[in-house]
């Protein structure tokens, strides 16, 4: 007997307002603070479990990142992780940020169109983004504009295609 897979609708994420309501008191305070501090960039606020999620436009990314690092109320001085997600109609670049002084953490996201995956590099703000961005460029073909050296980090020279994308064939063995 085959098992039915759950329908996509059942797995859909809750609406941003609902998700925000599920935050803890601390999370709500952080969410309000971020909304107020980044008001000029018109962030879209959401949440996932107990973590604040904030989406900005890619044109505002570096300015928002600089503000997040330098504003003494926020002081998000540590980029914990940078990842790229393929949603098949768009890419999302996810920045997990942490403030070591506060301490506090939240997730910053940038959405990119599938046929134009260009995003400004945040290496000038958090130098630790260096290898994460090279990995994202290797596996997803996302172009991090302003990165000084986007040479292949994980893949070898001459590799064709982007193996992180969902459209990449799973059994494609390339002789090298």
């Amino acid at each position: 007997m085959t098992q039915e897979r759950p329908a996509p609708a059942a797995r859909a994420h809750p609406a941003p307002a609902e998700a925000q309501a599920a935050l803890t008191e601390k999370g709500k305070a952080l969410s309000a603070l971020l909304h107020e501090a980044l008001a000029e960039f018109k962030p879209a606020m959401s949440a996932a479990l107990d973590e604040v999620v904030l989406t900005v436009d890619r044109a505002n990314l570096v300015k928002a990142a600089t503000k997040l690092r330098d504003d003494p109320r926020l002081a998000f001085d540590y980029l914990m992780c940078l990842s790229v997600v393929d949603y098949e109609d768009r890419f999302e670049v996810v920045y997990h940020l942490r403030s070591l002084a506060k301490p506090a953490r939240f997730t910053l996201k940038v959405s990119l169109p599938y046929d134009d995956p260009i995003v400004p590099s945040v290496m000038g703000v958090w130098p630790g983004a260096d290898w994460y961005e090279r990995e994202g460029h290797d596996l997803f073909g996302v172009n991090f504009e302003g990165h000084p050296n986007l040479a292949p980090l994980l893949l070898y020279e001459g590799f064709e295609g982007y193996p992180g994308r969902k459209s990449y064939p799973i059994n494609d063995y390339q002789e090298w």
Partner: protein
Amino acid sequence: MAVKPGDMTPVTWDPKRRHKLDLPVTPGGWETPQAPLGGNRPALSPFNKSGVPGIITAPAEQLFALARTSSLWPLTFGLACCAIEMISTYMAHHDLDRLGVVTWPSPRQSDVMIIAGTVVKKMAPPIKLLYEQMPDPKWVIAMGSCATNGGPYYRSYSVVMGVDHIIPVDVYVPGCPPRPEALMEGILRLQEKIKQDARRK
């Protein structure tokens, strides 16, 4: 001096009951009555079991093989989780030293290369270079399913489908990762192979 079962008193060393095979006591050398009894004594030489002065005749190739067998120096070199099992094989619990296996952090003085882990395509050229830097005679043990044929990463975009695509392999050790006993079995098989190859020449 008879030893009864359950007798817990320490027994002094007696040359007459030193071996089950009832070998004669060798005349001269360290077993003379003048030598003090007890303590650590060297093991009986494998060439001297008959009790007469040791003579062995064999082709030079076989003698060299015997020497090589007893002193395999693997290159200290780990690629993935198999390396953890390899390290634990070298450590006190399993103790590869007693087989004459000494790890060496340079390819120039090594005999054996243990490919312990996943060989990704980016790592393939350095592996080949290290193999070429090792002096002859040299042997390769492919440890675990990744080094054997790609294992769980079979036909992956980044993993070589077995290290035998780039260098020749003498012994394949199955497992994911293999237990230390399996690696020890692999090394014993390699020792056998070295001796057999010398006999065939």
